[in-house]
């Protein structure tokens, strides 16, 4: 494997299992945390996207009853019909259905039980508003238009919900991003530390290689390849462990019934499998670059004139 890169690293560097084992663990843990963070934020993203598209597609408008009823020619209240026309003129609206009074009664059932309601009970009328895909209803505009027609209506566009979801998502993203940046920084610094330690420990090898005419890139490749290999293996272990843990959590939650926040995200996606490959590779690349730069810098500062 390492031979491909032109240097047989394993044979020139000491086979220092004892020193490498803790380094392996550090990288494995970092990869584990990185993968977990990525999986969690992917899950969170999917969940919030699901919710928001659910919320966005259909909006319920409640047209409130008035004391002096304003009835149409066939005796039905005319307010809902007017509201329907107003709403249909908005560009985002695809269709508006006036729901039958039974639906309004259903809403009251939890409060009033299934006792027959008096006929003259002023029930609100529900309108089911469907939007064009990807469009958002400007509810302030709709409010204003309805108010202008002297119609008292409540637009339940889940604004409060939506705002909370957005906010939760934003907070989660900030935390994930901070964590990721820190994990990457930790990987880089761990790689730099390991390289510097290796330079100190293998100073004689480096001096001798210089003495016998090895160019700096030869020596640098020796070290960065060996560290990158450790990172790749450790990253693989960490990423797989993270995937297993997240699958386990997903299974636990989905088997014990619906769970609003966690569940939508915890079904495994193809993306998660990509992560398990990408994290170790990216980790190895980060480590390779960090240690390559560190050793070349040291070589040019201290050894090569």
């Amino acid at each position, binding site marked *: 494997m390492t031979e491909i890169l032109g240097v047989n690293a394993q*044979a*020139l*560097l*000491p*086979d220092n299992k004892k020193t490498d084992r803790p380094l392996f663990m550090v990288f494995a843990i970092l990869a584990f945390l990185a993968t977990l963070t990525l999986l969690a934020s992917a899950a969170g993203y999917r969940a919030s996207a699901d919710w928001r598209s659910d919320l966005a597609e259909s909006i319920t408008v409640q047209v409130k009853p008035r004391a002096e009823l304003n009835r149409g020619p066939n005796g039905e209240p005319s307010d809902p019909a007017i509201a329907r026309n107003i709403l249909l003129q908005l560009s985002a609206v695809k269709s508006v259905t006036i729901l039958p009074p039974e639906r309004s009664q259903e809403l009251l059932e939890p409060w009033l039980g299934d006792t027959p309601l008096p006929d003259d009970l002023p029930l609100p009328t529900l309108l089911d508003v469907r939007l064009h895909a990807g469009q958002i209803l400007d509810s302030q505009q709709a409010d204003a238009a309805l108010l202008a027609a002297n119609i008292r209506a409540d637009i339940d566009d889940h604004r409060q919900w939506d705002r909370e979801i957005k906010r939760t998502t934003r907070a989660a993203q900030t935390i994930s991003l901070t964590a990721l940046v820190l994990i990457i920084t930790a990987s880089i610094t761990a790689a730099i530390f390991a390289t510097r330690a290796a330079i100190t420990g293998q100073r*004689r*090898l480096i*001096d*001798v*290689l*210089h*003495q*016998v*005419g*090895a*160019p*700096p890139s*030869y020596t640098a490749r020796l070290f960065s390849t060996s560290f990158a290999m450790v990172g790749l293996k450790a990253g693989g272990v960490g990423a797989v462990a993270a995937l297993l843990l997240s699958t386990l959590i997903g299974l636990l939650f989905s088997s014990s019934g619906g769970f609003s926040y966690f569940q939508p995200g915890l079904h495994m996606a193809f993306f998660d499998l990509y992560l398990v490959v990408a994290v170790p590779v990216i980790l190895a690349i980060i480590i390779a670059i960090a240690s390559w730069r560190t050793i070349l810098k040291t070589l040019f500062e201290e050894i*090569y*004139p």
Partner: protein
Amino acid sequence: MHTPSSTSIPSAQTQPSAAGNNANIRANIRFERVGFRYTRDVEILSDVSFSLPRGSMTFVTGPSGAGKTTLLKLIYLHMQPSRGLITVFGQDTSQIDRKAIPTLKRRMGIVLQDFDLVDHLNVFENVALPLRVAGRKQATYRDDVLGLLKWVGLGARAHVLPQMLSGGEKQRAAIARAVIAKPEILIADEPTGNVDQDIARRLIRLFKEMNRLGTTVVIATHNTDLISEDANVLALTNGQVSRINTGMRVKV
């Protein structure tokens, strides 16, 4: 234990030989009014001028701290002089591109005063290192390395780590590493400090044989017993050349 057996000098196959052929006029060393100081204060070397012809063998002598090691470091491109001109392989060392240095180093063999063996590589691997760095496959050099190890009395120690060697054995391994790639220039700093007179003479014979085949040899030593009457000597005292053979004097 592992003192050299009485085998004769290895055959041409295992010995430096090619060096002579491509070591043309470039393969010499020339110092012109060279001065060197490590720190700002004292000049360790001052106004050192000499010329070592291609294929020559020279002993650098002088008391401890005279500047012998410093002079060798200047030759093997470890440092640049503070003033003056140094030419190695026909090239002004101050003009050499940084990238060309590894290539030039591969044409030199160097034995340091504190024999730099790599702890985790065995004797064979240590000695073969220059060949490996030059990109050669083990199959092509295995016999050469083993033959040379036998010659310096380490035939039976090829596969042990340096820490299992005695002081004199380490020194011989370091010398073997310096000569294995048949360098055009061989630089040895106190190469016989840790061996008895018998082995010291044997090692000097190795250097002479290398020289006979075309390698320019420079040896720093305080062991004046090793230096024959007719040898080239460059004696340093207090950073200046105090004695020099006429053939090595440089006209400036």
